[in-house]
């Protein structure tokens, strides 16, 4: 495959943009080739070849997130049909670890990006709000592993959680006030205190950061 081994200049550009090191990019590239079966792009069907993913209840949402144009930082909206390696890296970059030399502003931006990724997972109709129905969808999917669970239970759990969310974001609501949905600002409020930026990342085993002892 001609473009299999990235030219160093391209690699450096990718590294700068996504924040991965060249070794990590090489690993991911190999993984990409495996998933795409040596094609240049990946489609949704390619994710079926990962057996461990089957057991994840929100499998659908995760795969969907890869093709979501909002995550791919493209101006248009909606879903892409296929993604190339650069897009793959862009999605993966939401999960890279924080660096030690980041200042407050960078950390804050980093955190917002990660939370935006999660927000998009909830907000499936791309309208910028998580409505009660969307929330219910997520809860149902998460609890779908249990076949004995009644749909009603899942629904009532979601409703309870949504009310709780409303009370955090809006405070006490009047009896005829309708809570439209969780906006991104409210979402941020709810995640306050949880230092997601130190937990929402995948850790590469860096064989070359072995301290050089000599």
């Amino acid at each position, binding site marked *: 495959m001609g473009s299999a081994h990235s030219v160093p200049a391209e690699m450096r550009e990718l590294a700068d943009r996504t924040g991965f090191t060249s070794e990590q990019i090489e*690993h*991911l590239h*190999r*993984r990409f080739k*495996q998933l795409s079966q040596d094609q240049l792009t990946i489609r949704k069907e390619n*994710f079926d070849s*990962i057996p*461990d*993913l089957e*057991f*994840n*209840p*929100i*499998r659908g*949402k*995760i795969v969907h997130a890869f093709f979501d144009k909002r995550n791919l930082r493209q101006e248009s909206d909606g879903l892409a049909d296929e993604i190339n390696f650069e897009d793959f890296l862009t999605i*993966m970059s939401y*999960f890279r670890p924080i660096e*030690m030399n980041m200042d407050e502003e960078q950390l804050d931006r980093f955190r917002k990006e990660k939370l935006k990724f*999660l927000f998009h*997972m*909830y907000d499936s109709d791309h309208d910028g709000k998580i409505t009660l129905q969307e929330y219910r969808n*997520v*809860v149902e999917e*998460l*609890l*779908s*592993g*249990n076949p004995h*669970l009644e749909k009603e*239970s899942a629904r*009532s*759990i*979601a409703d*309870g*959680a949504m009310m709780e*969310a409303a009370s955090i974001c809006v405070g006490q609501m009047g009896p005829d006030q309708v809570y439209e949905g969780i906006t991104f600002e409210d*979402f941020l409020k*709810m*995640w*306050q*205190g*949880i*230092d*997601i930026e*130190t*937990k*929402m990342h*995948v*850790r*590469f*085993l*860096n*064989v070359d*950061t*072995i*301290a*050089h*002892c*000599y």
Partner: protein
Amino acid sequence: MFLLLPFDSLVVNLLGISITVLFTLLLVFIIVPAIFGVSFGIRKVYMKTLLKIFQWATLRIERGAKEKNHPLYKPYVNGIIAKDPTSLEEEIKEIRRSGSGKALDAPEFELSDIFYFCRKGIETIMDDEVTKRFSAEELESWNLLSRTNYNFQYISLRLTVLWGLGVLIRYCFLLPLRIALAFTGISLLVTGTTVVGYLPNGRCKDFLSKHVHLMCYRICVRALTAIITYHDRENRPRNGGICVANHTSPIDVIILASDGYYAMVGQIHGGLMGVIQRAMVKACPHVWFERSEVRDRHLVARRLTEHVQDKSKLPILIFPEGTCINNTSVMMFKKGSFEIGATVYPVAIKYDPQFGDAFWNSSKYGMVTYLLRMMTSWAIVCSVWYLPPMTRQPEEDAVQFANRVKSAIARQGGLVDLLWDGGLKREKVKDAFKEEQQKLYSKMIVGSHEDRSRS
């Protein structure tokens, strides 16, 4: 046997001479420097020579493999990413605990729960069992130990000869030398500390006991041919503090104690270990617990606190992970030592796997087998970083403090910071177990929900 008679006296003479020479060399080059803490630099030269040989060996393998057209098997033993098989409950509790200060005993669905599954999903996408096999690219350097190389069959004659020579040197020359040194070191420790124990308490006794300990640890370090680089020595632990380090093998104790004065903490064993422990405590106060006392956390905490508050006693050395980890990650620290309220001096220890794998997998090897493996490796090369002291801030609890220290150690040593409790067995997550996890999650949420609606 009668055939040997004519050569008898000659053989005996030669044997006698060689043993004497050996012991003189031993004394001059190893034990005397150990006593005074100087180094001739022999080990560094040894290390550099070894590295050159390893590089040559690796090139030969690659060339040989290319000629024969075999793919090289480069084992990514841990995959390309670190997955921590934390239990579902643990991790969700941890996330929730660090978030809103809500009571943990009323778990219902929270926005943050999705995070666990999301991350697990991304991890599987990045790396599952399939990636753990082949890599057609360059091999890591081979260190002439067949136990660390899977491409062994593809090498040339020259390499086999070299490997054979290596085996000979390691087993017939280095091993007896090291065993002799270890024996000397341990017996000196036992006798030295017992002798010092008879002195009346005072500055003289303290001074002598420190130096006896130090000297014997240094001899043991040479017994293992451990080449250690210490960084930031100005942060070394002081009296009244607790020294905390990540744990890879029992050798960690020797490595740290040969560069500073520590009081050890541990359970009293029987046999040789017990003899050593009882002798050591005569010279200076270490904290040894009987087996029954170990489980009583309050007793343990009280004794440690007493020790720490006495400024004349040496800093305590503790390994909070509780078990040996394979030196690529740092597991959850047990919070006991962080509740005491003393200054914590974190230390990061990182071994260089090129020269020998120092990790003790206690389920695979017993102590004796492990020590034999260590003594038949080429050398043990490691780096020790002394990190600046940390104290518990008023608004954190012991667990948060422990995690903060753990992150600092992990970051310095280039290790992965994991939430996983080192006490869990490291099995592959079976399929049925994964399904159970999902069911468990729903049970967790639904169960409490039903409880609440019932009440």
